């Protein structure tokens, strides 16, 4: 297959402060009406001296078209999913975000809604939330959903909070002080539990890539508050003993929270209910097709079994058969994990995505995501220097964590080098594979959104780079050549004397005396 003669835009664009020209204006603010100025004066005189800003903020002054151009250029320096075969950010489920859904969310009927409006004026918005709740119940088998958490991590925090509130309500809040997770579960499963004051117990995997059940049996005790676990884990291996894991934790008195941030391979195939979970969540910006937005705004749809409904964050949306309403009176509620009702545009887009696909379409999306993934698995295994650790001969669900270990040993070309070279072909191969248990890792997750031809093109680039690594490793190590910038000097990023998190800080540290 012929590889694309790609070159990313390279505008050599200034940092925005360098575009400053004193006196230019980007947008004007209308002055208040004369009659108002006449009535109240300049407004500022009403403030005590101590509250008045003495020197204006040193924001740049730039005309409107130049601001627009600057950000359009930066946008061209960004490789959104709409532009590439975005399968190299494995675990992130970067799929197609239908444009119609964005158009619907841009309506003033969404954008100009205020969360405190009278319920009679937001019946449409509440209906969308309620109906999406019903859909999520079907998909998970659980009984009630809240869309308040604004990300997967926030949903994990909410699950850890409900675990805490549950045990507190039963007088075991103090004694149950441990949360169990697995090493291949998302880092936030460990981190958000620690935020709540829990001691985190991490179960490692055995040689088959699955969590060690014997270690789990030893880990549970009267101190166990709960379990937070991802399945399939980042390896893409479905854990067939997931119900045994929940049984062990429940028998010890713990609650079980399912991290289904990415459920893209299992829609309609297997559910939180059958696996014995008390809680779960789905990232709408992963599985349900809402845009990632460079990292949010987003939504972690949080579901629980009936017994835990009273612990959900408030308010919930209720429907009495005639009208929709916000319900605040939950006896054991953890309170809130975000202001208002979460990121409504994300809920709306997920609703539209589900309505476009229906039950059969959801299954088809999952099936094709799994088909694509296993197709890639077959092909990657034939690329020199690449391998798929764990579970040899087994199929995977929605993604695979691969390794360049062999290639690195043989050529000294690392996974980072490959990632940077992939940029030359217009692809991502991202570098986040925590924990770094698999040596020289890379993770591919094709989702259902890319055609076979596109997948083949991505694979051709991987194959090409492998050939280069074996024939001309320096070429790979010098990449990227056709991306926006050349290799970045990382030496300042961990040095407090040199790091510069803002432009003003950069100027202070680098241009003293100028």
């Amino acid at each position, binding site marked *: 297959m012929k590889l694309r003669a790609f070159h990313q835009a390279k505008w050599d664009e200034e*940092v*925005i402060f360098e575009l400053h020209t004193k006196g230019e*204006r*980007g947008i004007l*603010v209308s002055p*208040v009406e004369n*009659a108002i100025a006449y*009535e109240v004066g*300049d*407004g500022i005189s009403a*403030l005590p001296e*101590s509250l008045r800003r003495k020197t204006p903020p*040193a*924001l*740049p002054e730039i005309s409107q078209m130049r*601001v627009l151009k600057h950000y359009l250029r930066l946008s061209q320096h*960004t490789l959104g999913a709409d532009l590439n075969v975005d399968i190299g950010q494995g675990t992130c489920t970067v799929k197609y975000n*239908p444009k119609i859904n964005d158009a619907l969310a841009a309506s*003033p*009927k969404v954008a100009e809604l205020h969360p*405190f409006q009278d319920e009679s004026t937001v019946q*449409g918005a509440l209906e969308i939330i309620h109906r999406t709740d019903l859909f999520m119940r079907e*998909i998970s088998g659980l009984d009630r959903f809240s869309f308040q958490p604004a*990300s997967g991590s926030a949903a994990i925090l909410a699950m850890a*909070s409900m675990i805490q509130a549950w045990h507190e309500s039963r007088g075991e809040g103090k004694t149950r002080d441990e949360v169990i997770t697995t090493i291949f579960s998302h880092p*936030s499963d*460990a981190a958000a539990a620690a935020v709540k*004051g829990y001691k985190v117990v991490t179960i490692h995997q055995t040689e088959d890539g699955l969590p060690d059940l014997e270690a789990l049996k030893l880990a549970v005790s009267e101190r166990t508050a709960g379990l937070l676990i991802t399945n399939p884990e980042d390896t893409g291996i479905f854990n067939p003993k997931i119900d045994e894991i929940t049984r062990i934790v429940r028998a010890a008195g713990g609650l079980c929270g399912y991290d289904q941030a990415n459920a893209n391979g299992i829609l309609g195939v297997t*559910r939180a209910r*059958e696996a014995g979970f008390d809680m779960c969540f789905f990232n709408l910006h992963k599985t349900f097709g809402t845009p*990632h937005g460079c*990292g*949010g705004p987003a939504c972690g749809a949080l579901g629980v079994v009936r017994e835990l409904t009273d612990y959900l964050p408030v308010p919930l949306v209720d429907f009495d058969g005639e009208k929709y309403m916000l319900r605040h009176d939950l006896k054991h509620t953890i309170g*809130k994990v975000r202001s*208002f009702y979460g990121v409504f*545009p994300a809920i709306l887009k997920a609703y539209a995505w*589900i309505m*476009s696909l*229906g039950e059969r*379409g959801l299954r088809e*999306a999952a099936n*094709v995501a*799994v088909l694509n993934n*296993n197709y890639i698995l077959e092909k990657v295994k034939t690329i020199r220097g690449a391998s798929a650790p764990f579970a040899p001969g087994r*199929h995977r669900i929605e993604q695979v964590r691969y390794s360049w270990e062999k290639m690195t040993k043989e050529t000294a070309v690392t996974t980072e080098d490959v990632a940077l070279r992939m*940029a030359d072909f217009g692809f*991502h191969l*991202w570098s986040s594979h925590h924990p770094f248990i698999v040596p020289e890792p890379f993770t591919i997750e094709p989702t*259902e959104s890319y055609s*076979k031809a596109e997948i083949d093109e991505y694979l051709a680039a991987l194959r090409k780079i492998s050939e280069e690594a074996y024939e001309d490793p320096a070429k790979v190590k010098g990449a*990227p050549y056709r991306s926006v910038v050349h*290799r*970045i*000097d990382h030496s*300042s990023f*961990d040095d*407090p004397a040199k790091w510069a*998190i*803002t432009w003003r*800080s950069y100027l202070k540290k680098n241009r003293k005396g100028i």
Partner: protein
Amino acid sequence: MSDEKPFVHPYIPNSVPEVKEQMLREIGVRSVDELYRDIPERLRFRGRMNLPEPLTSEAALKRHVEGILGRNRSCAEALSFLGGGCWPHYVPAVCDEINRRSEFLTAYAGEPYEDHGRFQALFEYESLMAELLDMDVVNVPTFDWCQAASTAVRMAGRLTKRDEALVVDTTGPDRLLVMKNYCRGVMNLVPVRHDPVTGGMDLEDLAVKFTERTAAVYFENPSYLGFFETQGQRIAEMAHARGGLCVVGVDPISLGVIAPPSHYGADIVCGDIQPLGVHMNFGGGQGGFISTRDEERFVMEYPSRLFGIAKTAFEGEWGFGDVAYDRTSFGVREKGKEFVGTAAALWGITAGVYLALMGPQGMRELGQHILQKSQYAVKRIATLSGVKAPRFKSPYFKEFVVDFTGTGKSVADINQALLGRGIFGGRDLGRDFLGLAGCALFCVTEVHTKNDIDSLAAALEEVLR
């Protein structure tokens, strides 16, 4: 599934049966179901998800969703005076143009090469906010002000190795609920009373409640109730004198005219960027910022991504990347600082665009405009019989409390009557603040004209008659 007609959907290219067959052959299996072999039968869901018939045509989908949304009556179709953490401000067209770009909208977490623009735009957001706040470090946005305040307090706890925070009791109710949940099990939040006349913090109560366990004092400026805390310097001094930190929440849109908290002693500043070019979105437009001085001990306590600027191998090129990445939970899981992940990056980029458009002059003019408009609104409303406005004797910005107790009518009744006249009245404060039954929080910004305010006053006069 073989007896069903093929389901080819525009979002799923490889749903074409021939392509599917070819891929299955190459994998060496006969059906997709075989690929699920690892999922044991007892875990397989063999039922049907009870979902509505899909609207696979885009035209039908659009009609259906618009039909539901048509039951909303937005602030664009009424005259709204609602605020309270989500505010109506003018959104420049360029802000929408940028945040609706495919490149930004559908990007996620690429490397600082092919996603160079994402890194630069967020670095610039940090930098522009830093000028507004007059501080040297700002994070890549977190979820909202609630989360920013929660993290700010937890940062203070770690920095001082203390486990209590004093929080003024006029703090926004959502904020307080999020902070309480976020701190539960690790830190205590202790309320500090406000002065019933000025609304400002009761410094005597602060002095009494400050102990050797106090990590931070938290207040908001302007407060949730719109008035300014004028004793910021004094509060910061009291906190510092006893080894605590001063954490201040602020509305960034006020800072063209109002002194930023760093000027009166704040150590950690937080707030929401929704006012800066993001639509209200039913409360979905929030994004939180946290800001500090550029001291290692502060920087190392951030859970957030912090994007920094650097050189590249090519002279004259700007590169960007993660500063002190190893403090994050990505790297070290539960040993990291709280947690980090997807939050509100697109709104951060948008807020950067907004500040670049507004410049220092625009921010000053806007701040002044809002001061004048809200003062005018108070003046008009205060003339109504039985109405007290503002409830607190302090200068205010954008929002103010109107006390209707002297009118003999409840806020709920007044708002119902206003609704009938096409007006969304102020937020009823009775539920959230014990002492403010019969009071409402009104919000007036640059989107309101003199006519709008006069209409409100006239409608209130009718309603209260």
